[in-house]
Protein backbone atom coordinates (compact mmCIF):
# COMPACT_ATOMS: atom_id res chain seq x y z
CA UNK A 1 0.00 0.00 0.00
CA UNK A 2 2.31 2.71 -1.23
CA UNK A 3 1.47 6.29 -1.87
CA UNK A 4 0.08 6.54 -5.34
CA UNK A 5 -0.88 9.52 -7.44
CA UNK A 6 -4.57 8.64 -7.32
CA UNK A 7 -4.85 10.32 -3.93
CA UNK A 8 -4.75 13.69 -5.62
CA UNK A 9 -7.99 12.75 -7.31
CA UNK A 10 -10.08 13.44 -4.19
CA UNK A 11 -12.84 15.79 -5.27
CA UNK A 12 -13.78 18.35 -2.63
CA UNK A 13 -17.35 18.59 -3.94
CA UNK A 14 -17.90 14.84 -3.99
CA UNK A 15 -16.33 14.58 -0.55
CA UNK A 16 -18.54 17.38 0.78
CA UNK A 17 -21.63 15.59 -0.45
CA UNK A 18 -20.56 12.31 1.10
CA UNK A 19 -19.70 13.99 4.40
CA UNK A 20 -23.21 15.41 4.40
CA UNK A 21 -24.74 12.14 3.30
CA UNK A 22 -23.09 10.23 6.10
CA UNK A 23 -24.32 12.80 8.62
CA UNK A 24 -27.81 12.50 7.13
CA UNK A 25 -27.78 8.73 7.50
CA UNK A 26 -26.72 9.12 11.14
CA UNK A 27 -29.75 11.36 11.61
CA UNK A 28 -31.94 8.53 10.38
CA UNK A 29 -31.19 6.78 13.68
CA UNK A 30 -32.96 9.30 15.91
CA UNK A 31 -35.51 9.64 13.12
CA UNK A 32 -36.24 5.94 13.29
CA UNK A 33 -36.22 5.99 17.08
CA UNK A 34 -38.94 8.64 17.06
CA UNK A 35 -40.90 7.06 14.23
CA UNK A 36 -40.99 3.76 16.08
CA UNK A 37 -41.18 5.35 19.54
CA UNK A 38 -44.35 7.21 18.70
CA UNK A 39 -45.99 4.09 17.33
CA UNK A 40 -45.71 1.92 20.41
CA UNK A 41 -47.71 2.25 23.60
CA UNK A 42 -46.64 4.92 26.04
CA UNK A 43 -45.00 2.49 28.41
CA UNK A 44 -42.66 1.15 25.72
CA UNK A 45 -41.43 4.35 24.14
CA UNK A 46 -38.12 4.56 25.96
CA UNK A 47 -37.37 0.89 25.45
CA UNK A 48 -38.15 1.29 21.76
CA UNK A 49 -35.89 4.30 21.35
CA UNK A 50 -33.13 2.58 23.29
CA UNK A 51 -33.12 -0.29 20.82
CA UNK A 52 -32.15 2.05 18.01
CA UNK A 53 -29.62 3.94 20.11
CA UNK A 54 -28.11 0.75 21.48
CA UNK A 55 -27.86 -0.66 17.98
CA UNK A 56 -26.02 2.46 16.94
CA UNK A 57 -23.51 1.84 19.72
CA UNK A 58 -22.75 -1.80 19.15
CA UNK A 59 -23.07 -1.93 15.38
CA UNK A 60 -20.65 0.93 14.88
CA UNK A 61 -18.10 -0.73 17.12
CA UNK A 62 -18.54 -4.13 15.46
CA UNK A 63 -18.41 -2.55 12.02
CA UNK A 64 -15.22 -0.64 12.80
CA UNK A 65 -13.45 -3.65 14.24
CA UNK A 66 -14.28 -6.32 11.66
CA UNK A 67 -17.61 -5.64 9.97
CA UNK A 68 -16.25 -3.40 7.25
CA UNK A 69 -13.53 -5.91 6.43
CA UNK A 70 -16.08 -8.71 6.21
CA UNK A 71 -18.18 -6.67 3.83
CA UNK A 72 -15.53 -4.97 1.73
CA UNK A 73 -12.38 -7.01 2.21
CA UNK A 74 -10.91 -9.26 -0.48
CA UNK A 75 -12.90 -12.40 -1.16
CA UNK A 76 -12.74 -15.28 1.26
CA UNK A 77 -14.61 -18.52 0.73
CA UNK A 78 -15.16 -17.94 -2.95
CA UNK A 79 -16.80 -14.57 -2.49
CA UNK A 80 -19.06 -15.52 0.39
CA UNK A 81 -17.45 -12.95 2.63
CA UNK A 82 -14.58 -10.46 2.80
CA UNK A 83 -11.27 -10.96 4.59
CA UNK A 84 -12.10 -10.08 8.22
CA UNK A 85 -8.67 -8.76 9.14
CA UNK A 86 -7.98 -6.74 6.04
CA UNK A 87 -9.12 -3.39 7.44
CA UNK A 88 -9.03 -4.37 11.09
CA UNK A 89 -10.15 -1.42 13.20
CA UNK A 90 -10.09 0.71 10.04
CA UNK A 91 -6.56 1.66 11.11
CA UNK A 92 -5.13 1.47 7.62
CA UNK A 93 -7.66 3.98 6.28
CA UNK A 94 -6.41 6.87 8.40
CA UNK A 95 -3.52 7.73 6.10
CA UNK A 96 -4.36 9.75 3.01
CA UNK A 97 -2.71 7.17 0.77
CA UNK A 98 -5.58 4.80 1.56
CA UNK A 99 -7.75 6.96 -0.65
CA UNK A 100 -8.04 6.79 -4.33
CA UNK A 101 -10.61 4.20 -5.31
CA UNK A 102 -13.36 6.78 -5.61
CA UNK A 103 -13.19 10.56 -5.58
CA UNK A 104 -13.88 10.41 -1.86
CA UNK A 105 -11.83 9.36 1.18
CA UNK A 106 -12.06 5.61 1.77
CA UNK A 107 -12.55 6.03 5.51
CA UNK A 108 -15.62 8.13 4.76
CA UNK A 109 -16.98 5.36 2.56
CA UNK A 110 -16.37 2.93 5.42
CA UNK A 111 -18.39 4.87 7.98
CA UNK A 112 -21.10 5.71 5.46
CA UNK A 113 -21.53 1.98 4.89
CA UNK A 114 -21.40 1.38 8.63
CA UNK A 115 -24.33 3.69 9.12
CA UNK A 116 -26.30 1.71 6.53
CA UNK A 117 -25.77 -1.31 8.72
CA UNK A 118 -26.96 0.62 11.79
CA UNK A 119 -30.19 1.64 10.13
CA UNK A 120 -30.85 -1.79 8.69
CA UNK A 121 -30.29 -3.38 12.07
CA UNK A 122 -32.34 -0.83 13.97
CA UNK A 123 -35.24 -1.32 11.54
CA UNK A 124 -35.60 -4.89 12.74
CA UNK A 125 -36.36 -3.75 16.27
CA UNK A 126 -39.77 -2.56 15.12
CA UNK A 127 -40.89 -6.13 14.69
CA UNK A 128 -40.29 -7.03 18.32
CA UNK A 129 -41.38 -3.78 19.95
CA UNK A 130 -42.77 -4.14 23.48
CA UNK A 131 -41.21 -7.49 24.19
CA UNK A 132 -37.44 -7.40 23.66
CA UNK A 133 -34.89 -7.34 26.48
CA UNK A 134 -32.34 -4.62 25.88
CA UNK A 135 -29.34 -6.82 26.65
CA UNK A 136 -30.54 -9.63 24.40
CA UNK A 137 -31.22 -7.14 21.64
CA UNK A 138 -27.65 -5.81 21.78
CA UNK A 139 -26.27 -9.30 21.47
CA UNK A 140 -28.63 -10.14 18.64
CA UNK A 141 -27.88 -7.06 16.57
CA UNK A 142 -24.12 -7.47 16.98
CA UNK A 143 -24.24 -11.06 15.79
CA UNK A 144 -26.65 -10.15 13.03
CA UNK A 145 -24.26 -7.43 11.83
CA UNK A 146 -21.43 -9.87 11.38
CA UNK A 147 -23.34 -12.96 10.33
CA UNK A 148 -26.21 -11.62 8.24
CA UNK A 149 -25.58 -8.05 7.16
CA UNK A 150 -21.87 -8.14 6.37
CA UNK A 151 -22.13 -11.07 3.92
CA UNK A 152 -25.17 -9.62 2.19
CA UNK A 153 -23.42 -6.28 1.89
CA UNK A 154 -20.43 -8.10 0.43
CA UNK A 155 -22.65 -9.55 -2.27
CA UNK A 156 -24.52 -6.39 -3.10
CA UNK A 157 -22.35 -3.40 -2.33
CA UNK A 158 -18.80 -4.62 -2.85
CA UNK A 159 -18.70 -3.85 -6.53
CA UNK A 160 -15.72 -1.55 -6.58
CA UNK A 161 -13.20 -4.15 -7.52
CA UNK A 162 -13.78 -6.28 -10.58
CA UNK A 163 -11.68 -9.09 -9.23
CA UNK A 164 -13.99 -9.51 -6.25
CA UNK A 165 -16.54 -12.27 -6.60
CA UNK A 166 -18.20 -10.52 -3.68
CA UNK A 167 -20.66 -8.26 -5.29
CA UNK A 168 -21.75 -11.23 -7.38
CA UNK A 169 -25.39 -10.31 -7.08
CA UNK A 170 -24.56 -7.17 -8.96
CA UNK A 171 -21.49 -8.21 -10.89
CA UNK A 172 -22.69 -11.63 -11.99
CA UNK A 173 -26.44 -11.84 -11.60
CA UNK A 174 -26.87 -8.33 -12.92
CA UNK A 175 -29.19 -7.22 -10.13
CA UNK A 176 -29.82 -3.49 -10.09
CA UNK A 177 -29.98 -2.26 -6.52
CA UNK A 178 -28.90 1.31 -6.19
CA UNK A 179 -29.00 2.04 -2.49
CA UNK A 180 -29.88 -1.23 -0.90
CA UNK A 181 -33.32 -2.58 -1.67
CA UNK A 182 -32.03 -6.08 -1.07
CA UNK A 183 -29.24 -5.53 1.44
CA UNK A 184 -31.18 -3.01 3.47
CA UNK A 185 -34.91 -3.14 2.95
CA UNK A 186 -35.57 -6.76 2.07
CA UNK A 187 -32.86 -7.94 4.45
CA UNK A 188 -34.26 -5.97 7.37
CA UNK A 189 -37.80 -6.97 6.49
CA UNK A 190 -36.96 -10.66 6.20
CA UNK A 191 -34.85 -10.57 9.37
CA UNK A 192 -37.74 -8.85 11.11
CA UNK A 193 -40.15 -11.56 9.99
CA UNK A 194 -37.76 -14.21 11.27
CA UNK A 195 -37.26 -12.50 14.60
CA UNK A 196 -40.96 -11.83 15.07
CA UNK A 197 -41.67 -15.51 14.51
CA UNK A 198 -38.93 -16.63 16.87
CA UNK A 199 -39.74 -14.18 19.63
CA UNK A 200 -43.47 -14.82 19.39
CA UNK A 201 -46.42 -12.52 19.89
CA UNK A 202 -46.98 -9.79 22.40
CA UNK A 203 -49.20 -10.68 25.34
CA UNK A 204 -52.63 -9.54 24.26
CA UNK A 205 -51.84 -9.37 20.53
CA UNK A 206 -55.03 -9.23 18.51
CA UNK A 207 -57.14 -8.71 21.64
CA UNK A 208 -55.95 -5.69 23.55
CA UNK A 209 -55.87 -2.44 21.66
CA UNK A 210 -52.27 -1.37 21.09
CA UNK A 211 -52.67 2.08 19.77
CA UNK A 212 -49.75 4.28 18.73
CA UNK A 213 -49.35 6.65 21.64
CA UNK A 214 -47.96 9.76 20.01
CA UNK A 215 -48.48 10.54 16.34
CA UNK A 216 -46.62 13.81 16.63
CA UNK A 217 -43.47 11.85 17.41
CA UNK A 218 -44.21 9.61 14.45
CA UNK A 219 -44.41 12.67 12.23
CA UNK A 220 -41.16 14.17 13.52
CA UNK A 221 -39.51 10.81 13.03
CA UNK A 222 -40.81 10.40 9.51
CA UNK A 223 -39.63 13.91 8.65
CA UNK A 224 -36.12 13.20 9.88
CA UNK A 225 -36.12 9.84 8.12
CA UNK A 226 -37.04 11.37 4.81
CA UNK A 227 -34.47 14.11 5.21
CA UNK A 228 -31.84 11.48 6.02
CA UNK A 229 -32.94 9.30 3.14
CA UNK A 230 -31.56 11.84 0.69
CA UNK A 231 -28.16 11.03 2.12
CA UNK A 232 -28.92 7.33 1.98
CA UNK A 233 -29.94 7.30 -1.67
CA UNK A 234 -28.24 10.24 -3.32
CA UNK A 235 -25.18 9.69 -1.15
CA UNK A 236 -24.95 6.20 -2.63
CA UNK A 237 -23.98 7.87 -5.90
CA UNK A 238 -20.67 8.49 -4.10
CA UNK A 239 -20.28 11.67 -6.10
CA UNK A 240 -21.96 15.01 -6.41
CA UNK A 241 -23.21 15.32 -9.94
CA UNK A 242 -25.97 14.50 -12.36
CA UNK A 243 -26.51 10.98 -11.05
CA UNK A 244 -26.93 12.16 -7.47
CA UNK A 245 -29.39 14.79 -8.70
CA UNK A 246 -31.56 12.28 -10.55
CA UNK A 247 -31.53 10.00 -7.53
CA UNK A 248 -32.37 12.91 -5.25
CA UNK A 249 -35.34 13.86 -7.39
CA UNK A 250 -36.59 10.28 -7.45
CA UNK A 251 -36.31 10.09 -3.67
CA UNK A 252 -38.40 13.19 -3.27
CA UNK A 253 -41.00 12.17 -5.81
CA UNK A 254 -41.49 8.63 -4.58
CA UNK A 255 -41.93 9.77 -0.99
CA UNK A 256 -44.54 12.33 -2.02
CA UNK A 257 -46.38 9.84 -4.20
CA UNK A 258 -46.17 7.25 -1.42
CA UNK A 259 -48.16 9.58 0.82
CA UNK A 260 -50.89 9.81 -1.77
CA UNK A 261 -50.89 6.06 -2.43
CA UNK A 262 -51.34 5.10 1.20
CA UNK A 263 -53.87 7.85 1.94
CA UNK A 264 -55.84 6.80 -1.13
CA UNK A 265 -56.18 3.25 0.17
CA UNK A 266 -57.19 4.55 3.58
CA UNK A 267 -59.77 6.85 2.05
CA UNK A 268 -61.37 4.03 0.12
CA UNK A 269 -61.05 1.30 2.75
CA UNK A 270 -61.44 3.12 6.07
CA UNK A 271 -63.28 6.22 4.98
CA UNK A 272 -60.68 8.74 5.99
CA UNK A 273 -57.00 9.50 5.78
CA UNK A 274 -54.84 9.38 8.90
CA UNK A 275 -51.60 11.03 9.83
CA UNK A 276 -50.05 7.67 10.60
CA UNK A 277 -50.99 6.70 7.07
CA UNK A 278 -49.32 9.77 5.62
CA UNK A 279 -46.10 9.08 7.50
CA UNK A 280 -46.20 5.39 6.61
CA UNK A 281 -46.91 6.13 2.97
CA UNK A 282 -43.91 8.41 2.68
CA UNK A 283 -41.72 5.71 4.20
CA UNK A 284 -43.19 3.04 1.92
CA UNK A 285 -42.46 5.19 -1.12
CA UNK A 286 -38.93 5.79 0.09
CA UNK A 287 -38.37 2.09 0.70
CA UNK A 288 -39.43 1.22 -2.83
CA UNK A 289 -37.32 3.92 -4.43
CA UNK A 290 -34.21 2.87 -2.52
CA UNK A 291 -33.15 0.17 -4.99
CA UNK A 292 -34.72 1.89 -7.97
CA UNK A 293 -33.78 5.55 -7.51
CA UNK A 294 -31.09 5.39 -10.15
CA UNK A 295 -33.19 3.58 -12.71
CA UNK A 296 -36.42 5.45 -13.16
CA UNK A 297 -37.60 8.70 -14.69
CA UNK A 298 -39.50 11.22 -12.54
CA UNK A 299 -42.82 9.77 -13.67
CA UNK A 300 -41.45 6.32 -12.91
CA UNK A 301 -40.56 7.50 -9.42
CA UNK A 302 -44.08 8.80 -8.91
CA UNK A 303 -45.46 5.46 -10.06
CA UNK A 304 -43.09 3.55 -7.83
CA UNK A 305 -44.13 5.66 -4.86
CA UNK A 306 -47.85 5.50 -5.37
CA UNK A 307 -47.82 1.76 -5.96
CA UNK A 308 -45.59 1.09 -2.96
CA UNK A 309 -47.77 3.30 -0.77
CA UNK A 310 -50.90 1.50 -1.82
CA UNK A 311 -49.48 -2.02 -1.69
CA UNK A 312 -47.88 -1.53 1.71
CA UNK A 313 -51.09 0.02 3.08
CA UNK A 314 -52.72 -3.23 2.14
CA UNK A 315 -49.84 -5.46 3.25
CA UNK A 316 -49.74 -4.25 6.86
CA UNK A 317 -53.01 -6.07 7.39
CA UNK A 318 -51.45 -9.43 6.49
CA UNK A 319 -50.06 -9.98 9.95
CA UNK A 320 -53.55 -10.34 11.34
CA UNK A 321 -54.39 -12.86 8.68
CA UNK A 322 -51.22 -14.92 9.14
CA UNK A 323 -51.03 -14.37 12.87
CA UNK A 324 -47.41 -13.25 13.24
CA UNK A 325 -46.96 -10.19 15.43
CA UNK A 326 -44.78 -7.78 13.50
CA UNK A 327 -45.50 -4.96 15.92
CA UNK A 328 -44.57 -1.99 13.77
CA UNK A 329 -45.00 -3.59 10.36
CA UNK A 330 -41.39 -3.94 9.33
CA UNK A 331 -42.45 -6.78 7.07
CA UNK A 332 -45.42 -4.96 5.62
CA UNK A 333 -43.45 -1.83 4.85
CA UNK A 334 -39.81 -2.81 4.37
CA UNK A 335 -40.01 -6.34 3.02
CA UNK A 336 -43.01 -5.65 0.82
CA UNK A 337 -41.87 -2.14 -0.15
CA UNK A 338 -38.39 -3.45 -0.89
CA UNK A 339 -39.86 -6.13 -3.14
CA UNK A 340 -42.02 -3.59 -4.95
CA UNK A 341 -38.97 -1.44 -5.60
CA UNK A 342 -36.57 -4.20 -6.54
CA UNK A 343 -38.94 -6.06 -8.83
CA UNK A 344 -40.45 -2.82 -10.12
CA UNK A 345 -37.11 -2.01 -11.68
CA UNK A 346 -37.74 -4.89 -14.04
CA UNK A 347 -40.95 -3.20 -15.12
CA UNK A 348 -40.40 0.55 -15.23
CA UNK A 349 -36.66 1.13 -15.39
CA UNK A 350 -35.81 3.62 -18.10
CA UNK A 351 -32.68 3.46 -20.19
CA UNK A 352 -32.43 7.24 -19.91
CA UNK A 353 -31.79 7.01 -16.16
CA UNK A 354 -28.27 6.70 -14.73
CA UNK A 355 -28.21 2.91 -14.44
CA UNK A 356 -29.13 2.75 -18.14
CA UNK A 357 -31.30 -0.33 -17.85
CA UNK A 358 -34.70 -0.69 -19.50
CA UNK A 359 -37.62 -2.49 -17.86
CA UNK A 360 -40.48 -4.35 -19.45
CA UNK A 361 -42.76 -1.32 -19.89
CA UNK A 362 -39.92 0.83 -21.18
CA UNK A 363 -39.06 -1.48 -24.03
CA UNK A 364 -36.51 -3.58 -22.19
CA UNK A 365 -38.21 -6.95 -22.43
CA UNK A 366 -38.26 -9.52 -19.65
CA UNK A 367 -34.49 -9.72 -19.12
CA UNK A 368 -34.06 -7.29 -16.28
CA UNK A 369 -37.22 -8.49 -14.55
CA UNK A 370 -35.69 -11.95 -14.53
CA UNK A 371 -32.42 -10.69 -13.10
CA UNK A 372 -34.20 -8.76 -10.37
CA UNK A 373 -36.31 -11.78 -9.45
CA UNK A 374 -33.25 -13.98 -9.33
CA UNK A 375 -31.40 -11.44 -7.20
CA UNK A 376 -34.22 -11.27 -4.70
CA UNK A 377 -35.33 -14.85 -4.38
CA UNK A 378 -31.93 -16.51 -4.10
CA UNK A 379 -31.32 -15.45 -0.54
CA UNK A 380 -34.57 -15.32 1.35
CA UNK A 381 -35.13 -18.98 0.71
CA UNK A 382 -31.94 -19.70 2.59
CA UNK A 383 -33.06 -17.59 5.47
CA UNK A 384 -36.55 -18.98 5.74
CA UNK A 385 -35.02 -22.39 5.74
CA UNK A 386 -32.80 -21.55 8.65
CA UNK A 387 -35.75 -19.97 10.38
CA UNK A 388 -37.79 -23.14 10.04
CA UNK A 389 -35.07 -24.92 11.96
CA UNK A 390 -35.01 -22.23 14.59
CA UNK A 391 -38.72 -22.55 15.23
CA UNK A 392 -38.58 -26.30 15.29
CA UNK A 393 -36.07 -26.16 18.11
CA UNK A 394 -38.33 -24.10 20.34
Amino acid at each position, binding site marked *: MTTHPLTVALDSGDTAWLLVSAALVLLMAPGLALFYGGMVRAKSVLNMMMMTVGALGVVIVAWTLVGYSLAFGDDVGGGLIGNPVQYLGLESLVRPDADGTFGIPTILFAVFQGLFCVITGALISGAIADRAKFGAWLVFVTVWTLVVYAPVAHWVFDVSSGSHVGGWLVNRVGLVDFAGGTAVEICSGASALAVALVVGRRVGFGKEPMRPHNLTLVMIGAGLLWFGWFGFNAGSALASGHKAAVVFAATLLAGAAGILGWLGVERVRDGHATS*LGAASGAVAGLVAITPSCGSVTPVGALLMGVVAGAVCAWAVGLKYRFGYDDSLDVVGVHLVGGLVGTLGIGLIASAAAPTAVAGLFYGGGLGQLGRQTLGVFGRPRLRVHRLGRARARR
Partner: protein
Amino acid sequence: MKLVTAVVKPHMWEEVRQALETLGVKGLTVSEVSGSGRQKGHTEVYRGAEYDVSLVPKVRLEVVAHDDDLEDILRVMVTAARTGRIGDGKIWVTPVERVIRVRTGELDDDAI
Protein backbone atom coordinates in the same frame (compact mmCIF):
# COMPACT_ATOMS: atom_id res chain seq x y z
CA MET B 1 -73.63 20.75 53.66
CA LYS B 2 -73.61 18.91 50.37
CA LEU B 3 -71.09 17.89 47.75
CA VAL B 4 -72.41 18.39 44.24
CA THR B 5 -70.53 16.37 41.65
CA ALA B 6 -71.27 17.09 38.00
CA VAL B 7 -69.85 15.17 35.04
CA VAL B 8 -70.35 17.30 31.92
CA LYS B 9 -69.15 17.70 28.35
CA PRO B 10 -65.63 19.14 28.15
CA HIS B 11 -66.51 22.40 26.47
CA MET B 12 -69.46 23.08 28.80
CA TRP B 13 -67.60 23.38 32.08
CA GLU B 14 -66.70 27.01 31.52
CA GLU B 15 -70.40 27.84 31.03
CA VAL B 16 -71.23 26.06 34.27
CA ARG B 17 -68.51 27.92 36.12
CA GLN B 18 -69.82 31.24 34.87
CA ALA B 19 -73.39 30.30 35.76
CA LEU B 20 -72.31 29.42 39.27
CA GLU B 21 -70.52 32.71 39.57
CA THR B 22 -73.78 34.56 38.96
CA LEU B 23 -75.04 32.77 42.10
CA GLY B 24 -71.99 33.95 43.98
CA VAL B 25 -70.51 30.45 44.07
CA LYS B 26 -66.85 30.83 43.27
CA GLY B 27 -65.15 27.84 44.80
CA LEU B 28 -65.04 24.67 42.78
CA THR B 29 -62.68 21.90 41.84
CA VAL B 30 -62.34 20.63 38.29
CA SER B 31 -60.81 17.45 36.91
CA GLU B 32 -60.54 15.65 33.62
CA VAL B 33 -62.30 12.31 33.45
CA SER B 34 -63.65 9.92 30.86
CA GLY B 35 -67.11 8.56 30.79
CA SER B 36 -68.99 5.67 29.41
CA GLY B 37 -72.76 5.53 29.08
CA ARG B 38 -75.35 5.85 26.40
CA GLN B 39 -73.11 8.06 24.31
CA LYS B 40 -71.08 5.92 21.96
CA GLY B 41 -67.33 6.18 21.77
CA HIS B 42 -65.63 6.21 18.41
CA THR B 43 -63.45 3.98 16.29
CA GLU B 44 -59.91 4.82 15.31
CA VAL B 45 -58.13 3.07 12.48
CA TYR B 46 -54.36 2.73 12.47
CA ARG B 47 -52.72 0.98 9.58
CA GLY B 48 -55.95 -0.76 8.79
CA ALA B 49 -56.53 -2.07 12.30
CA GLU B 50 -59.63 -0.76 14.09
CA TYR B 51 -59.50 0.32 17.69
CA ASP B 52 -62.71 0.95 19.61
CA VAL B 53 -62.36 3.83 21.95
CA SER B 54 -65.31 3.38 24.25
CA LEU B 55 -64.58 6.24 26.60
CA VAL B 56 -65.66 9.79 25.95
CA PRO B 57 -63.77 12.73 27.49
CA LYS B 58 -65.72 14.57 30.19
CA VAL B 59 -65.03 17.13 32.88
CA ARG B 60 -65.99 16.62 36.51
CA LEU B 61 -66.90 19.58 38.70
CA GLU B 62 -67.08 19.29 42.45
CA VAL B 63 -68.74 21.96 44.54
CA VAL B 64 -69.16 21.88 48.28
CA ALA B 65 -72.32 23.87 48.98
CA HIS B 66 -74.50 25.18 51.79
CA ASP B 67 -77.72 23.23 52.13
CA ASP B 68 -79.72 26.35 51.26
CA ASP B 69 -77.91 26.95 48.02
CA LEU B 70 -78.35 23.42 46.76
CA GLU B 71 -81.48 23.88 44.69
CA ASP B 72 -80.17 27.00 42.99
CA ILE B 73 -76.88 25.36 42.20
CA LEU B 74 -78.50 22.29 40.69
CA ARG B 75 -80.82 24.44 38.63
CA VAL B 76 -78.17 26.63 37.05
CA MET B 77 -75.86 23.69 36.51
CA VAL B 78 -78.43 21.70 34.60
CA THR B 79 -79.35 24.71 32.53
CA ALA B 80 -75.79 25.66 31.71
CA ALA B 81 -74.55 22.16 30.92
CA ARG B 82 -77.45 21.08 28.77
CA THR B 83 -77.00 20.76 25.02
CA GLY B 84 -79.89 18.32 24.63
CA ARG B 85 -77.76 15.68 23.01
CA ILE B 86 -76.83 12.31 24.44
CA GLY B 87 -73.83 12.47 26.72
CA ASP B 88 -74.72 15.68 28.54
CA GLY B 89 -73.79 13.96 31.75
CA LYS B 90 -74.94 13.46 35.30
CA ILE B 91 -75.07 15.40 38.53
CA TRP B 92 -75.19 13.73 41.93
CA VAL B 93 -75.35 15.03 45.46
CA THR B 94 -73.77 13.45 48.53
CA PRO B 95 -73.94 14.57 52.15
CA VAL B 96 -70.94 16.30 53.68
CA GLU B 97 -70.31 16.14 57.41
CA ARG B 98 -67.36 18.43 57.88
CA VAL B 99 -65.60 21.11 55.88
CA ILE B 100 -62.35 22.84 56.78
CA ARG B 101 -60.61 25.76 55.10
CA VAL B 102 -56.94 24.86 55.34
CA ARG B 103 -55.61 28.41 55.40
CA THR B 104 -57.64 29.63 58.39
CA GLY B 105 -58.91 26.47 59.98
CA GLU B 106 -62.47 27.81 59.66
CA LEU B 107 -65.06 25.06 59.94
CA ASP B 108 -68.14 23.86 58.14
CA ASP B 109 -70.47 26.54 56.79
CA ASP B 110 -67.83 29.20 57.38
CA ALA B 111 -65.32 27.23 55.37
CA ILE B 112 -67.25 26.94 52.14
